[in-house]
């Protein structure tokens, strides 16, 4: 995967967030403060603009720019957390011009570690970690099993989606939903839901890049 695939990934995330803005906001209204959709839309719009102004020439530099933009410009908890995820992943990729599925798996593990460190959430706390962690695990397993790139990314996206749905019965232990205690049960976590979109967007970007090459 080259820089173009990663640029397409970010574009796909921005489009998915825009399309699903109302659903994310509705999920956030149930257990938070009803701004997750709007914040992510603003954030990824800013990222898309930043990428248009400055076109980084490696996947690592691109993810770094995405991360810094989200951290500095978005606000809320999602800006710093998603920003840290992308920045750490970008750092892990170094200055390689192309990235294998195994490289990506390691980079996303670094991103997840950054989110855990900053937010302090573990799996089961009903946060974005509940979607990201299983997705990163599924990706690493697929790499170990020798799966193809498309299959591996598909496994990650499915695991993220399942992880997001699995937050429904959870009681929140971090973030604003934690103030609801038992009343947070029965609602999907908006951060986990948006993380599932991010992994689905990665699949879509990879598939599109393949088509654009005529293969």
């Amino acid at each position, binding site marked *: 995967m080259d820089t173009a695939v990663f640029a397409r990934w970010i574009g796909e995330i921005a489009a998915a967030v825009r399309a699903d803005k109302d659903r994310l*906001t509705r999920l956030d*209204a149930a257990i*938070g*403060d*009803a*701004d997750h959709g*709007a*914040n992510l839309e*603003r954030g990824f719009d800013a990222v898309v603009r930043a990428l248009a102004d400055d076109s980084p020439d490696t996947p690592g530099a691109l993810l770094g720019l995405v991360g810094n933009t989200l*951290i*500095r*410009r*978005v*606000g*809320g*908890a*999602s*800006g*710093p*957390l998603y920003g840290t995820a992308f920045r750490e992943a970008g750092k892990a990729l170094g200055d390689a011009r192309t990235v294998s599925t195994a490289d990506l798996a390691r980079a996303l593990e670094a991103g997840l570690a950054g989110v855990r460190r*900053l*937010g302090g959430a573990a799996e089961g706390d009903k946060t974005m970690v509940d979607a990201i962690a299983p997705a990163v695990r599924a990706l690493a397993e697929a790499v170990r099993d020798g799966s193809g790139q498309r299959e591996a990314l598909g496994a990650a996206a499915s695991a993220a989606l399942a992880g997001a749905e699995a937050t429904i019965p959870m009681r*929140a*232990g*971090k*973030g*604003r939903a*934690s*103030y*609801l*205690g038992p*009343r947070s049960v029965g609602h999907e976590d908006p951060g986990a839901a948006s993380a599932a979109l991010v992994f689905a967007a990665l699949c879509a970007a990879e598939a599109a890049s393949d088509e654009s090459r005529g293969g």
Partner: protein
Amino acid sequence: MALASTREREKVATVKKLINSVDSVVADALRGMASAHPGLLRVDEENRIVSRASGPRAGKVGLVSGGGSGHEPLHAGFVGYGMLDAACPGEIFTSPVPDQMITAATAVNGGAGVLYVVKNYTGDVLNFELAAELCADEGVEVARVLVDDDVAVRDSLHTAGRRGTGATVFVEKIAGAAAEGGAPLPEVVRVAEEVNARSRSFGVALSACTTPASGRPTFELGETEIELGIGIHGEPGRTRSTMRQARELVAVAMDALDEDMPISGDVLVMLNGMGATPLIELYVAFAEVAEYLSGKGARAARSLVGDYVTSLDMRGFSVTVCLLNEELTRLWDAPVETPALRWGR
């Protein structure tokens, strides 16, 4: 029929906001603040920073706070002599971003360092933390004090911890007075932490608030339902209950405070409206607070009644109590001149 009336209510709720457009609410309000208080405030619209018109004072610790908009007058209304040097307003109910906080810290630094006053909400904490790290890289000395006074959060080990609410006003005023008096950064930090340690808050919502972006109430309350233990973003609180007399609601709030920190002696009390509570009702409630205090052998030695930490158009109230001592009383009484608090000058 029911569907039609719900739709009708949503439409009205969307339309009836005194705004130009959903996207420009914060920017338009900042322009208004700049026009209304040119002698007190300087508003940097581009960077979204409200600072004192007089600029930084050499040798004085700079006080910077910030948070989501929708809580006015918090924080920009408390910028001025004796209180904050700058405020960073975020989008509605969304913390500001590190860029704003760094620019503000740099702008108000008079060479004695800067204190960030941070309400304990995950977004605020993360963004101020990243900003403080970046400031340190740029050579600006920044300390942080976390305000976490909301007793409604019982289980602070299994949540993000107690929320920062009404005591933020006390911390900003009292630490602001210490800084104005020339106290060095560690001393300002100590005073700020002491105010937080001696303060507790509890809030009650009679109705939810409606953000301009969603146009719908952030949660549903039935005709006779109320929410006990709310935070300041319209997020639901401890429990649902049914509407009762002011006396009983105040007793619920005051019992929650007293259980957590026995109330005695001279106290500073803020009876805060949530944005849409008539002042006459706040005074009804304050009478009950005063009676409750005298029942505990305590006294409201200093008080504020009105809208200070709001939640847009929410109806309800919060009560914040700070156990005073001689030092905190003196700093509370020190002159202040901001759009929302002004005395002694």
